[in-house]
């Protein structure tokens, strides 16, 4: 049974690591923001084209795309604003970039869009209220299912120890088996 215990532990570790990874993902962009504040100046001058080859600018664009990929295009079907070529999406994408350049965090930018469009604009529901269900229920199903499966397996295993299990599938009798050995030898 000790191996079953290992399984439980392995699953639990995963489950613990799961929410951990969630928050880690959220934290990353925020940590990157202070560095970006230092490069905000060039972005404001429309005619300075050096931004095109500046790695810091590329980084800002990449972060903008990441934030924008979490925002829903209000006029499309199930597209984020980074994917859509609708005018509104493209404007919103520009707003995201400008606000990042001005030093706002991704969380602040999301809050801004939520205040304008409602929670619907976020492609990942905020983890509060009824939305907790969409995060919690899968875990509940997984954990409950695991314990049900574990109990079943243990029950079956103790049944098997009593020698209840047939040694072979029913359709493989002694003649079959002899035939099988012969056939294998022949080939």
């Amino acid at each position: 049974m000790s191996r079953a215990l290992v399984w439980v532990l392995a699953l639990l570790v995963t489950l613990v690591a799961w929410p951990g990874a969630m928050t880690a993902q959220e934290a990353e962009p925020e940590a990157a923001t202070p560095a970006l504040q230092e490069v905000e100046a060039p972005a404001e001058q429309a005619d300075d084209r050096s931004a095109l080859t500046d790695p810091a600018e590329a980084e800002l664009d990449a972060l903008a795309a990441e934030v924008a990929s979490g925002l829903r295009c209000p006029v499309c079907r199930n597209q984020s604003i980074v994917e859509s070529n609708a005018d509104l999406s493209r404007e919103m994408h520009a707003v995201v970039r400008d606000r990042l350049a001005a030093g706002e965090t991704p969380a602040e930018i999301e809050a801004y869009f939520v205040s304008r469009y409602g929670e619907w604009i976020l492609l990942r529901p905020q983890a509060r209220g009824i939305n907790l269900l969409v995060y919690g229920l899968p875990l509940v199903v997984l954990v409950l299912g695991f314990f049900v499966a574990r109990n079943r397996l243990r029950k079956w295993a103790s049944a098997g120890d009593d020698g209840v299990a047939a040694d072979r599938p029913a359709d493989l009798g002694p003649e079959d088996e002899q035939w099988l050995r012969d056939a294998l030898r022949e080939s």
Partner: protein
Amino acid sequence: MLNLIGSTSIAAALLGALVVTVTGIVGGFTRKPGLIRAARYGSYFVFAAMSTAFISMEIALLSHDFSVSYVAQVGSRETPTYYTAISLWSSLEGSILFWGWILSAYGALVAFVNRKSDSRLIPFAHGVMGFVGLFFYGLLTGPANPFGTVFPVPANGPGPNPLLQNHPLMGLHPPMLYFGYVGLTVPFAFAIGALLSGKVDDEWIRVTRRWTVAAWAFLSVGIVGGAWWSYEVLGWGGYWAWDPVENASFLPWLTATAFLHSVMVQERRGMLKLWNLSLIIGTFLLTLFGTFLTRSGILDSVHAFTEGVIGPLFLAFIALLMLVSLVLIAWRSDRLHSPGSLDAVVSRESMFILNNLLFVAFTFTVLLGTTFPLIVEAVNGNRVSVGPPYFNMVSIPIGVLLLFLMGVGPALPWRRTTPEKMKRTFLVPAVVGLAAGLFGFVLGTRSFWPLVTFTFAGFVTATIVEEFRKGISARRRIAGVSAPVALGQILTRNNRRYGGYIVHAGIVVIIVALALSGTYRFEREVTLRRGELMQLGDYGIMFDELWAEEQEQRFVVGSTFSIFHKGDDAGTMRPRMNYYPNSQQPIATPAVRSTLKEDLYLTLMAFDEAEGSHATVRAIVNPAVPWLWIGGMIVALGAILAVMPQRSSGRPAVSAAEIAEEEESAGLVDEPAAVTV
């Protein structure tokens, strides 16, 4: 004329399906040969009738007969012939017609293949397929009638949905999915047949095994093909958007995959009878649910065709089937109780059960996420979105666990094992896995999930290679043949098992590609003037010019970019925008420069309409994407191998040869030499 032929054929198919349903089920209970024969010939008749309807519609489409309502809806004289032919599935009525035709073809094929079988299941299976047919042919006679008469006859039509006439693959991806979806009707019909007949042993599973694997393979190819299409054609830069309709194809795939694994436990050990029946019934209901999502327009989706009466009808049919299944299961519950027994908790059996747990939890999660906006709106009227950020977050842990099981399960023997054997089996794969993880770390991966993925992928790959090695060496010892011949022999003699391993290998490739492209993809959107260069990773992207082209069915605005890779000239790329008369938004066609390492992906987002002096381009570096398609092909190859007829001369299909060789290679039959690597 075609209206009349089409409508009459569909009415005939409906009538035929009614006959098949009644004769099949009554014949199943009474065992009257006349009734059983009637059900068989009825299935042929339905197929003939639906084929007539199908051909009539193709003729109507290709001859631009706009008096036929469906042609008036999706046809146009400007659409190229190829896209006209495949516009059968570009809208609601046509796709239901196509669905119904495939269903009738499966019905006839089941009848033909089993024409000499005296199994008690067969007439019931005909009856159930006829019953499912009643619903679809019924839709075609009323709410989704493609053969309505249009008067006065229009001179031209709007043409199919632009998204669906943008790429030749549209001729392949939807049919694959439909063959997969509809193919799952066959195991469902036999499962219900097993319940009706009371013959709930594993016969229905053995009879339908190859049907299920084939349907699963179609579904897999359809899904990967859809990913490819959305990547190469839709131009939004990704291959999987967790769009409700993508999820609708993924859900039955997940449960069908669970089913393909759990039936092995029943075949071996006679356990999980009720579970397997429920899984396949659930799978079939999920295919209907997917169609409901697609066709009802209840959820926003690029695929949703229409709103109307179809949605409620689908829902009612799903509810009816669910009810009937539950009643049948309750009725047969005394026979479904299978006393489970295991020799040990650590065995292949229990790995299959864990596998099923994860697949079902995965299915539940995707289903919950897909329908969650509806649930929230029903509860408190709020609107929320559940999109890719959510689904990626929840599916990564489950996917990684499944990956791990894929290495453990097949390498564990049935029944029981010993610690020494475990060590012998898993030592090398574990080392390979850790090496793979370390390799990822050395190359600069610092994120948790990708590192775990690489480790497990290395582990699984090593176990697969080891299984092949053991199989080959056992074969060489028994038959005294050379290694390549031995490989050929294990592939043909034990195609189910080794086909399965090849499928696993393909899945590993896909998962690693997903991890790489998900983690290391980066992008940038920039407005460039002519001659300006932007930098993205190793790539320099220079805007050269805009151009335009008038084509028969559309107007194309294109752009040309010069590409430099690490400073070297790497040719040009030409992303475009297509303007269709029946679409307000232009449809983008991306330009993709693929290498085995990574793709450079350009989409034209906007351009200067007056002078063509600047263009806005979205550029993405997307690592490892080609490996998704390669992995998909490996999966398809493995599945094809697994459905090949077994080459074991008429003996009990699954058990004999397979068990012997498995035990040989697992070292259960006295293996002379210890495993050396």
